[in-house]
């Protein structure tokens, strides 16, 4: 081998670095080029994702806005001439609905449509049109004694003919009624306060929205305290040994388990029955209800909250703990007075990510029966209910064309709820972060 050269004597004289040489210039150019390439790649990635988002939003809004508007027809009515067999007393009694129905109101409305809009006039009205008239009469009984014009919902086919998507008879009707100036477009309040229906004109999102809110409430009430307390225990109290390592690995894996597995778990545990010693036990929770959906989703997002909370707690500088312990704070005071407030922004972020995931979840809820056809919003946590994403899934599966715009409209509602939730998270985070 070579013997070590004594540096001073034998090393060749080093030339001073020529910073202006061609080789140097080339290096510099290459470095700048690499920098530019990377910046462009990054900007490209951002543009692509922004484009996807914009495309999604534009299609949804383009299709969905009609879901928020309704086509109504101004129907001239003469209920006095129709000679309904209804008395004033009946109108003021709880049986008013029944009295009006059996008194021939539906027929009277259809006759009025024929009179006003021509022989096929009745087919322009939505099947629920007479219900609108009924409600109007109940609000104002004098309608029975005089002529009046009432706005009633148009049939789905008529609504589609309006966008050039209906059959010939309806198209003719649209042309005729346009000339009569009887077509109105208004905000679709029905969509906001009704529930599912087989008729796209009569469907509403409120049932699913309320179901979602109730389910989320259960999810939050279970997942947040349990998740945060687990995180505190694991970080601050649990001894570091093989068991806690095992728990940590399990939690990390649980966060990656596909959501449908949690649906199966919920189905088996909460809705399952067990036969023990000849007696049948269970199910623990009612099918299709927000409570079972909420508990199932809570199990699903708990690992996410635990992991985020543990990281947030880990991020609190140990010097703060030392400071508090050093003046005699007990471990629990250290946690609640110092660690938690500092970790809260991170904990909230993790919680919101988990809640957003739960809000958009469909698969596990299908398994526990939250895909039922729900025509009345759930009145309690144990009533059958559905949730926004499942409602979207159900409507997207409908054959009737009228459901397309309702599906998009429902997606917009879901996005709005998501945005509201994220907004709340950002607000809370800033509130806690800017305190000092």
């Amino acid at each position: 081998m070579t013997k070590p050269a004594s540096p001073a004597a034998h090393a060749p004289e080093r030339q001073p670095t020529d910073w202006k040489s061609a080789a140097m210039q080339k290096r510099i150019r290459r470095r700048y080029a690499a920098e530019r390439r990377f910046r462009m790649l990054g900007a490209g990635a951002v543009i692509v994702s922004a484009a996807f988002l914009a495309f999604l939003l534009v299609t949804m809004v383009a299709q969905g806005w009609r879901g928020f508007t309704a086509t109504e027809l101004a129907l001239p009515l003469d209920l006095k001439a129709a000679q309904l067999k209804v008395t004033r007393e009946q109108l003021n009694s709880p049986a008013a609905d029944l009295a009006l129905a059996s008194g021939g109101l539906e027929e009277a409305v259809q006759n009025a449509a024929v009179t006003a809009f021509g022989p096929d006039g009745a087919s322009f009205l939505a099947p629920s049109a007479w219900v609108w008239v009924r409600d109007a009469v109940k609000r104002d009984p004098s309608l029975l004694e005089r002529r009046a014009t009432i706005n009633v919902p148009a049939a789905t086919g008529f609504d589609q003919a309006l966008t050039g998507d209906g059959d010939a008879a309806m198209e003719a009707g649209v042309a005729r009624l346009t000339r009569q100036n009887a077509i109105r477009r208004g905000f679709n309040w029905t969509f906001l306060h009704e529930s599912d229906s087989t008729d796209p004109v009569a469907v509403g999102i409120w049932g699913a929205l309320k179901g979602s809110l109730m389910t989320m409430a259960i999810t939050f009430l279970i997942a947040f305290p349990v998740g945060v307390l687990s995180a505190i225990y694991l970080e601050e109290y649990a001894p570091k040994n093989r068991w806690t390592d095992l728990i940590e690995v399990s939690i990390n894996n649980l966060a990656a388990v596909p959501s449908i597995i949690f649906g199966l778990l919920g189905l088996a545990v909460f809705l399952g029955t067990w036969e023990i010693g000849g007696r049948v036990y269970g199910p623990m929770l009612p099918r299709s209800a927000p409570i079972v959906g909420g508990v199932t989703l809570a199990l699903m997002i708990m690992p996410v909250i635990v992991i985020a909370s543990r990281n947030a707690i880990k991020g609190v500088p140990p010097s703060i703990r030392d400071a508090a312990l050093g003046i005699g704070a007990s471990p629990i005071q250290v946690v609640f007075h110092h660690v938690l407030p500092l970790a809260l922004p991170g904990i909230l972020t993790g919680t919101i990510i988990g809640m957003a995931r739960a809000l958009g979840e469909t698969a596990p809820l299908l398994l526990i029966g939250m895909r039922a056809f729900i025509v009345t919003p759930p009145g309690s946590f144990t009533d059958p209910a559905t949730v926004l994403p499942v409602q979207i899934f159900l409507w997207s599966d409908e054959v009737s064309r009228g459901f397309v715009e309702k599906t998009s409209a429902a997606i917009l509602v879901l996005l709005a709820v998501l945005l509201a939730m994220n907004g709340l998270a950002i607000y809370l985070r800033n509130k806690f972060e800017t305190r000092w």
Partner: protein
Amino acid sequence: MTALSPAPHKMSARGVSVFYGDKQAVKDVSIDVDMDKVTAFIGPSGCGKSTFLRTFNRMNDTIASARVTGEITLDGADIYADDMDVVQLRARVGMVFQKPNPFPKSIFENVAYGPRIHGLAASKSDLEAIVERSLKRAGLWEEVKDRLSDSGTALSGGQQQRLCIARAIAVDPEVILMDEPASALDPIATAKIEELIHELRGRYAIVIVTHNMQQAARVSQRTAFFHLGQLVEYGETDNLFTAPREERTKDYITGRYG
């Protein structure tokens, strides 16, 4: 060891050893801490000064692998006895850390926190009085009295360290442990801290860890020199610096290593 005597001391350590797992960081150390004297721990980095200091308020309890043997007493009572309440002990034996660590709260809250959790203030005005007195004793009052609601972390390093001293003082401790309280500070802030230690002496028993021998000579009346976990020499500061008995002490204070 000349300074060790059976007379009642504020705190005494007898035959204290500390282990981190199997590794012994402090080896059979005995020392006394008295009210009217500032005790300095000097020695090269890693020789166990901080570890030993933290046995006096049982801060080592927070380290899972740490184990302490021997006896440490406060007013004659064994602080590692089962009936000693750690929370109360740490109120009586306060601590100031190497890196200033104010809470990310207002200056007022930083000082008020201790009295509040220990229930030392009967009323709001009482609490305000405690805060003012503590900040005055820590020599910080004049600088912060107009901005008590500002964040403690917005102060300069030296001010933060004095705030931490005020925070320790506010719970009315008997002993104050300081672990290199000025090592992260500039010379002017350091001088202020040293001055403060002079003023606090007598009211509190003070133990200060420092790797700066001049500082030990300036602020302390008694010095303990540690090396590799052992207490090499312990005595009156003047004697130790002018006439060290041990060869290793002499090497250290003449700058041969460290």
